């Protein structure tokens, strides 16, 4: 993990004090709601259907045990005993009171956390590969760059009022687990000559009502040149991005309207004009950050066997190990993915007791470190293989040992109409019904990598466009109605799913998804993914399977 310094600590404390003053002035009537709203949004505080909602930043999804314990304590003290982990690797509380929010921010600041830039038209929390720094297939650890981007973008005076929100994602592996091609800017880090780091840049990806796959924008940019280049992109977007229509304000629309070549020229012109002396520190700062990452002290020759009798006799453990444990770069270690998707559960939710328990598990078995994934799960990134059984046993006790990572029941769902002021239909109850029904099927079928994402409106917070099976909830004449899309991907071959037919009623969604999965299993060839099968056989056979 990155070790924060006094400057970071001072910044979050000052921000908390500033917000306390703003809340006091609001409650005293010295500022109106219209004046206060942008101030509270800058601190992640929304007003949703039932209450305020506070979104807390988890920079690039990395958490310590101490921070997770604090999040649990806040859930108990100021909310209703649970938190909701999001697709931006953040956490949301659904029931905070305005009058208590400054106290929450103080508590967050005590563990160097905050809610800065989790809302508003600014650069949002940078996301990355949840296996960053530990993945067996990783080429470059993206965490130092993510930290550099965090420092550069935090309270950047020029980019506090962009035309619209702006999202970065970073990966350092050929297999993209950060969905970089559906972000405003996606960065792929590669090894260069003489231990240098190079960056490929994609621009203009995004979802929402106009889904776009990002276009390849710049090749192999050395890391020392990256910040001024990103600054140039942001300046061009800030200058030319539309402000007349918020639905056309993202950089993906600017790219579509301007054209790739022209936008690249504009960025290059801006890049050449930037005073590079302001960025001279980049290489040394990057090196400092690399040095500030607290690297676990891996055992040189760890015990790799888990051969005791109880391990061998537990089919549930074997299933969990096969589905939820991923290869680690360090021999003898594993990455354990903790599913927040028990069959029939609320995707991404964890109770305060679960949060505290998993913080303790991380402390005992994973160097006190945790990650949040954009699929709304948690990760124990550094588990000795010989400890896996004990970790699993601990997870069973807190009902977090579902062996369903990357299976259809590992559903991404937005809060939907149960909480969100923008939603047009519910998504959580649909996800609960789907996971209950499909879990039985997937337990008896050899499925690999089928994603189901459910959004409660066209804003696509659950990334339904790039799911193998996407579900979009709409309001049709006062009744919830769900469109189904197939063939989406969010990896290095990202693509937008295709709508397969008319929407279905809420009660019919689980059966429709089961029919899609069953049809896929019937017609797939060997290791073919659902989206590959869809590409091969086309829409009509799947449509026939769903609608008969």
């Amino acid at each position, binding site marked *: 993990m990155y070790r924060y310094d006094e400057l970071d600590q001072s910044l979050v404390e000052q921000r908390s004090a500033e917000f306390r003053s703003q809340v006091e002035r*609001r*409650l*005293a*009537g010295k500022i109106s*709601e219209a004046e206060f709203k942008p101030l509270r949004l800058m601190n992640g505080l929304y*007003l*949703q*259907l*039932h*209450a*305020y909602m506070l979104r807390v930043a988890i920079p690039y999804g990395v958490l310590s045990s101490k921070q997770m314990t604090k999040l649990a304590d806040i859930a108990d003290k100021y909310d*209703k*005993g*649970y938190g909701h982990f999001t697709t931006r690797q953040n956490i949301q509380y*659904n*029931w*905070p*009171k*305005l*009058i208590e929010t400054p106290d929450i921010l103080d508590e967050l600041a005590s563990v160097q956390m905050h809610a800065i830039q989790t809302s508003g038209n600014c650069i949002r929390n940078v996301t990355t590969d949840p296996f960053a720094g530990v993945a067996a297939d990783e080429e470059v650890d993206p965490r130092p760059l993510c930290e550099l981007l965090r420092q550069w973008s935090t309270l950047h005076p020029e980019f506090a009022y962009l035309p619209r929100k702006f999202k970065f994602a970073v990966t350092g592996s050929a297999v993209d687990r950060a969905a970089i091609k559906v972000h405003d800017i996606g960065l792929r880090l590669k090894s260069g000559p003489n231990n240098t780091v190079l960056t490929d840049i994609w621009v203009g990806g995004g979802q929402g009502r106009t889904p776009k796959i990002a276009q390849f924008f710049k090749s192999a940019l050395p890391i020392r040149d990256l910040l001024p280049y990103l600054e140039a992109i942001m300046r061009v977007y800030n200058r030319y991005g539309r402000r007349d229509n918020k639905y056309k304000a993202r950089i993906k629309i600017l790219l579509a309207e301007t054209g790739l070549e022209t936008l690249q020229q504009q960025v290059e012109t801006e890049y050449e004009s930037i005073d590079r002396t302001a960025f001279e520190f980049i290489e040394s700062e990057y090196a400092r950050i690399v040095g500030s990452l607290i690297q676990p002290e891996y055992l040189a020759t760890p015990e790799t066997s888990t051969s005791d009798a109880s391990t061998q006799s537990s089919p549930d453990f074997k299933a969990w190990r096969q589905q939820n444990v991923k290869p680690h770069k360090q021999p003898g270690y594993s990455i354990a993915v903790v599913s927040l998707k028990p069959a*029939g*559960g*609320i995707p991404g*939710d964890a*109770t305060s007791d679960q949060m505290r328990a998993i913080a303790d598990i991380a402390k005992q078995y994973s160097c006190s470190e945790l990650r949040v994934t954009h699929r709304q799960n948690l990760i124990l990134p550094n588990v000795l293989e010989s400890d896996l059984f004990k970790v699993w046993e601990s997870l069973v006790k807190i*009902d977090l040992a579902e062996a369903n990572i990357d299976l259809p029941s590992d559903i991404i769902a937005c809060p939907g*109409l*149960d*909480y969100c002021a923008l939603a047009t239909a*519910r998504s*959580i*109850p649909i996800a*609960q*019904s789907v996971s209950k029904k499909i879990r039985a099927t997937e337990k008896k079928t050899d499925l690999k990598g089928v994603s189901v994402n459910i959004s409660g409106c066209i804003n696509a917070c659950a990334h339904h466009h790039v799911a193998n099976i996407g579900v979009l909830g709409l*309001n049709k004449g*006062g*009744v*919830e109605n769900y469109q189904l899309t197939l063939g989406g991907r969010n990896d290095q071959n990202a693509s937008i799913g295709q709508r397969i037919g008319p929407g279905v009623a809420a009660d019919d969604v689980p059966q429709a998804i089961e029919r899609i999965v069953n049809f896929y299993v019937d017609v797939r060839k060997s290791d073919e993914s659902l989206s590959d099968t869809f590409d091969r056989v086309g829409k009509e056979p799947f449509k026939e399977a769903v609608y008969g």
Partner: protein
Amino acid sequence: MSSKATHAIIIANDLRTGRIVYFTNASDWSESVQDAELLSSDSAQERLAIAAIDETNNLVIDPNLVDANVNAGTELQLAEIREQIRVSGPTILGSNHAATSQAA
């Protein structure tokens, strides 16, 4: 208030807590929907104007009229699913969080 509804009620969010509150006969706010004043089309706009004063007074946020029907003489039924959920709380199915997810 639409022509499809027999009545309306006024809903807002409490400024300090964010919780849903209902405008009452006594020109006050209550967290219980049972206390909501049932408004006819004749009185709805006039009462909304009075309720809106409390927005200026920094007590509530965004007071607005919501269509409601009174069934069998007593039961209040809100016309839109969004407003039904606002009033009754999240509809999340039985789970370890259901009990804590209901509206206060």
